[in-house]
């Protein structure tokens, strides 16, 4: 038993740090650190840099262009990227649909789609959630009926993250309306340019356009775009959800946010002294940092178990809950640290192309918006209530 990283892992960390120092653009890191919104081009810029290094598809097998890293290496990479302020990887293509294609796709699908994801040519989004479904994913209503060598898709998806940037969407659709809930569902790859698709923005309470509704009106999808078997799409969905949940604790992001929280508390003053010297506020930071330490150790334990051949089971539900709560607690403190300075809603200061002088400080515009935005963490990817149901059922057998 040893909690320290091996010399090889430490060397790897240094390699990642060196890469980030030379390749992560300062302006990008600054935007991320300050919580500004990122443009499509920001994401693409970073994606290209990683691709050139061969470090974009960290979860893929080597033969398809992956890194072949161990889970520990992936964790180190994630952590260092977050610490350096690298943009978060938009995972719908590289980390969500790609594993499904690799696992269930035809050789033709692999040959066509995987290189386009690696090169950044395709931007994928996810067509899972529907207006009526919420956490009850399997109750989806979007249907597809076979018409010759096409499926004809009708229905609506929602909460489609960054769908406004995407040229492709992977969808769960109902192909057998008579079957039971989780049966009769198929997994389709759809070109967003196909006639009949409409994308409508959903503006969230922080004024951000991050999610969308996607409408399908007699959208014709070639049958070769079916992944796996017809009516067996739930298998793909479950496989993907397992992939999604791992790493949801977001340790690296929370650590970076905590660092920024400390910086803000050092800069803001209360009764003429830096806020960080206020014993109560300082203790609140200490408390969240201690809990984060515990969640990080738990993540490492699960990673090690995965490396040793285990499958991340319901523990990932615990980590999802704890990771989201900690991240929310940090943004809560960040907002509070600003006092009255958290009130102004200066959307232009959050825009990707803002380069003027801030009304107050460069760090002050984002925290209140972020606090509200981060409410999503306990809702999406299976709400924290659903995670507790899973724990009760799968782990505790209640």
């Amino acid at each position: 038993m040893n909690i320290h990283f091996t010399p090889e892992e430490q060397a790897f960390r240094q390699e990642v740090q060196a890469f980030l120092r030379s390749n992560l653009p300062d302006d990008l890191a600054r935007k991320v650190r300050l919580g500004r919104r990122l443009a499509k081009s920001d994401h693409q810029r970073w994606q290209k840099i990683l691709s050139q290094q061969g470090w974009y598809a960290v979860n893929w097998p080597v033969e398809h262009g992956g890194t072949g890293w161990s889970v520990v290496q992936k964790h180190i990479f994630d952590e260092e990227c977050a610490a350096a302020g690298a943009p978060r990887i938009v995972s719908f293509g590289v980390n969500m649909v790609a594993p499904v294609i690799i696992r269930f796709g035809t050789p033709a699908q692999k040959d066509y789609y995987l290189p386009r994801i690696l090169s950044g040519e395709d931007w994928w989004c996810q067509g899972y959630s529907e207006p009526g479904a919420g956490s009850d994913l399997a109750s989806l209503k979007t249907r597809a009926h076979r018409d010759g060598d096409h499926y004809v898709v009708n229905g609506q998806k929602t909460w489609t993250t960054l769908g406004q940037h995407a040229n492709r969407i992977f969808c769960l659709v109902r192909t057998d309306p008579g079957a039971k809930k989780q049966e009769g569902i198929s997994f389709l790859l759809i070109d967003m340019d196909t006639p009949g698709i409409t994308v409508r923005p959903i503006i969230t309470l922080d004024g951000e356009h991050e999610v969308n509704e996607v409408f399908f009106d007699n959208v014709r999808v070639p049958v070769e775009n079916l992944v796996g078997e017809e009516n067996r799409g739930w298998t793909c969905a479950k496989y993907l959800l397992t992939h999604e949940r791992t790493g949801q604790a977001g340790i690296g992001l929370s650590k970076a946010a905590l660092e920024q929280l400390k910086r803000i508390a050092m800069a803001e003053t209360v009764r003429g002294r830096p806020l960080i010297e206020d014993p109560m506020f300082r203790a609140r930071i200490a408390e969240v940092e201690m809990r984060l330490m515990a969640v990080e150790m738990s993540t490492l334990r699960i990673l090690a178990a995965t490396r040793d051949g285990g499958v991340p089971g319901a523990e990932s539900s615990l980590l999802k809950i704890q990771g989201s709560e900690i991240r929310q607690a940090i943004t809560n403190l960040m907002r509070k640290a600003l006092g009255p300075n958290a009130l102004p809603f200066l959307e232009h200061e959050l825009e990707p192309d803002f380069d003027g002088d801030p009304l107050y400080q460069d760090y002050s515009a984002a925290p209140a918006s972020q606090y509200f935005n981060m409410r999503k963490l306990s809702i999406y990817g299976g709400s924290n209530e659903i995670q507790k149901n899973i724990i009760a059922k799968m782990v505790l057998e209640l």
Partner: protein
Amino acid sequence: MDFNLNEEQQMLADTVQRMVRDQYSFEKREGYYRSSDGFSPEFWQQLSELGITSVPVGADYEGFGGSGVENMLVMTELGRGLCLEPFLHSQIYAAGLVEQLGSSEQRRSLLPKVAAGEWRLAVADEEPGSHYDPESIACMAIPCDRGWRLEGSKRVVIGGDSAKFILVSAKIQDTDGVSVFLIDPEADGVTSQSYPCIDGPRACDLALNGVYVECDDLLGAPGKAAPALIYQRGRAGAAQCAEALGNMEEAFRLTLDYLKTRQQFGAPIGRFQSLQHRMADMRGELELARSMVILAACVADDPVSDERSRQLSAAKFVVARASQFIAEQAIQLHGGIGMTWEYSLAHHAKRLVMLAHQFGDDDFHLAQYSALLDLPRQVA
């Protein structure tokens, strides 16, 4: 001990509630928010015609002379409707400061216009580093011929962009105490940057570069305004608690409705026991908050005392905690839909959380209360 409203008070509450219901649908509010004023001058006009703007102002100045209880009733309804007008900051906070600090001439020249809703006032007491403490300010009044020149910057002056006059706190050069000056935002040397707050209302930052104020523009004795600021922040905080109450009631109502109608896994989600218990917890917090809103309203106009300060801090603390809890849980129980701009609940939640960023948040008032903790004379 009497928790009933008298007939006049009940009528006041009903009137404002009806006005808000009629004039302040969520769609209309969106329009007001996006308008150049950032609120509805027509609604303000109606408030003035029905005498609501005069409620907090003393009867000697053509006001209604309402107490904390009347302020509570008005603010609860404005809170329920998420109203954007700077009623609290102009009619209660600023007018209260003028009434407490101003000379009889100042009061006579300002308050009737305020009561009539003709002029609005604003208070510029926060600064980048003040963090809810009206005494931690850097703004300076430099004595000059027959007056002062103001230098410094003020942050988040709620309603400042539509105010006729602004009450600015500053320290007179080489002295310690806080003074309050009346300035015209159009005056030379005033630069104002206006913006909406994240919870809706409009505010501005002020840069003051040698703004000339006459002797007559000083409110009260030089350097002696801090107690009045603290006292009036207590009154305003109490009224703000009432605003939070109306808001919480509405957020709670929307959530309860949602739990009864939203179907998932084949049943209304309100059938799930864990959500039922969450609602019970929210209801509990709401009741505690309501109790403290009433307490705060009843003691807001009491003379200064440690007891009043403790009660008002306790009210702000309990209400801030309840507000954040209810805001967060209301969103959580709604799921994604609770986070969308086009649904009113999201705006209720934003306001509930951000109310703590005025007049001191829960941490600030916990520290205040802690400092004033009443200890037994005898050790164990």
